């Protein structure tokens, strides 16, 4: 059984087994393990940090309430993300909190270095340094805003793949769709995002 540095089990299934054997803290460790990743995905989809915190909490509560019913047909990882994404999408639809904005007017306000960096990332022949993105807050905001201009399903699939790094199979399980739908939806989402980013540069 793989253990972490403290000698505690670290694999999801081992933690679940430990919890089933009466180790109450194992479930808490399991939730802590995914806390930031779940929050990051939820925050990217719903775009509001306060809502994201509440939705992550709701996800954990649902996980705890339903953990007895979890039979391991999917991984705990995809199961928990499925709960989080469903809650978040329902929240977005119910509250209609995602506002669609045009960023055309903001393009001119981009700083020169930001514009240049974005051009590099939109080009086909350069290999821009991803570390430059992390330190360029303006570029992060522009990209985040363009993500928000995607419809929810496109934003979700891009978030799961390109930000969370999930496999197509896992995305299909999380969204309860065919893997072929993941392929086509992701392709369309990227094409759409690219057009939005190009609009910013024009």
């Amino acid at each position, binding site marked *: 059984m793989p253990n972490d540095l403290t000698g505690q089990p670290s694999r999801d299934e081992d933690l679940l087994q430990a919890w089933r054997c009466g180790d109450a803290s194992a479930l*808490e460790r399991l939730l802590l393990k995914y806390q930031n990743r779940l929050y990051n995905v939820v925050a990217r989809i719903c775009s509001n940090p306060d809502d994201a915190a509440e939705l992550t909490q709701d996800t*954990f509560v649902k996980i705890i309430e339903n953990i007895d019913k979890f039979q391991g047909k999917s991984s705990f990882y995809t199961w928990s993300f499925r709960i989080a994404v469903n809650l978040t999408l329902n929240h977005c639809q119910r509250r209609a909190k995602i506002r669609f904005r045009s960023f055309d007017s903001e393009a001119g306000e981009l700083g020169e270095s930001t514009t240049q960096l974005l051009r590099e990332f939109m080009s086909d022949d350069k290999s821009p340094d991803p570390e430059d993105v992390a330190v360029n807050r303006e570029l992060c905001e522009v990209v985040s805003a363009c993500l928000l201009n995607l419809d929810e399903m496109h934003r979700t699939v891009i978030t799961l793949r390109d930000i969370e790094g999930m496999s197509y199979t896992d995305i299909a399980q999380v969204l309860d769709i065919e893997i072929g739908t993941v392929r086509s939806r992701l392709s369309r989402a990227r094409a759409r995002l690219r057009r939005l980013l190009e609009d910013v540069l024009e």
Partner: protein
Amino acid sequence: MSEGQDREELLSNFVDGELSERQAEEVERLAEQEEAICQRINQLKNLKRLLAALPRFEAPPDLNDALKAQLARNVNFDHEKAAPVDAPRRRHAVLGRIGAAAAIVVIVIALWALIHSTRKPFKEELPLAGPLEISPMVPAGQAVSGGLVARLELDVTFFSTVDTIMNRAIEYNGLSPYTDKKVEGRVKVYHIRSSRQALIAFLEDFSPAWSKVERASLRLTTEDSGNPLVLESLSADQMQQIFQRESAGQSVDFARRLVDRLQELTREHLDLAAARVPNPMLTSRESAAPPPIDLSGASGELTELTIVLRPSKD
């Protein structure tokens, strides 16, 4: 699907490494032959790099504590429906007016009785029990009895917002004449004496403020129960459910089972008993009693609710 879309999907899957070996080799061969395909692949790779480089949002440090508090709030007796509120909220405004009119009648009768009390014994002519049964409310400053005595202490963010919601809820439900307000430094104390129905409607209107509550502590007692019952980290729903019971005794009993259920849940799942945040979530047997309240007077299902509003420390 058009040929262009097919190609776009193929390339998108290629940069994700989600093509079969044979398909991937085919794309690589095409990219060598056709510059446009090679460029498109690079563009897709750059887009992926750009997205992957976005900073990760980190969960707030207090999320775990908040989770524990929410778990505490979510404890409900699903199998046990709360007693229905007899009248919908809109009726309370009407009831309030009827109550106010009834109160005037009571005052007139009381004055009449007072005038004639020199001739006859007071008790024989003043129908105390009758008017109190008709009136849903008791004016501030007048003692109540037979009902629930509750003290709700709330630490809130956005103090003025919560205070505004509180005042609106009081006003909307016609409770202003039955509410004493005191300001003690940064703390506001509302003391409401009212019928259970009016308080349920008030709590419903006050519930939007609950999202600004960082800590909620409810101390319950009845004339007969003696020892107070203390609940921490309760939610707006739980608060309403407690008040929706048919009698003061049932409210206390419900609250007690709420505490028991919570303890059971925490034992089953997270080891909250050892955790810091929702602790203590226990029925208190402590000797410290709530501020003394005069419970003398006529019997009736009247409820006394003291709400202490405190701005949270941060």
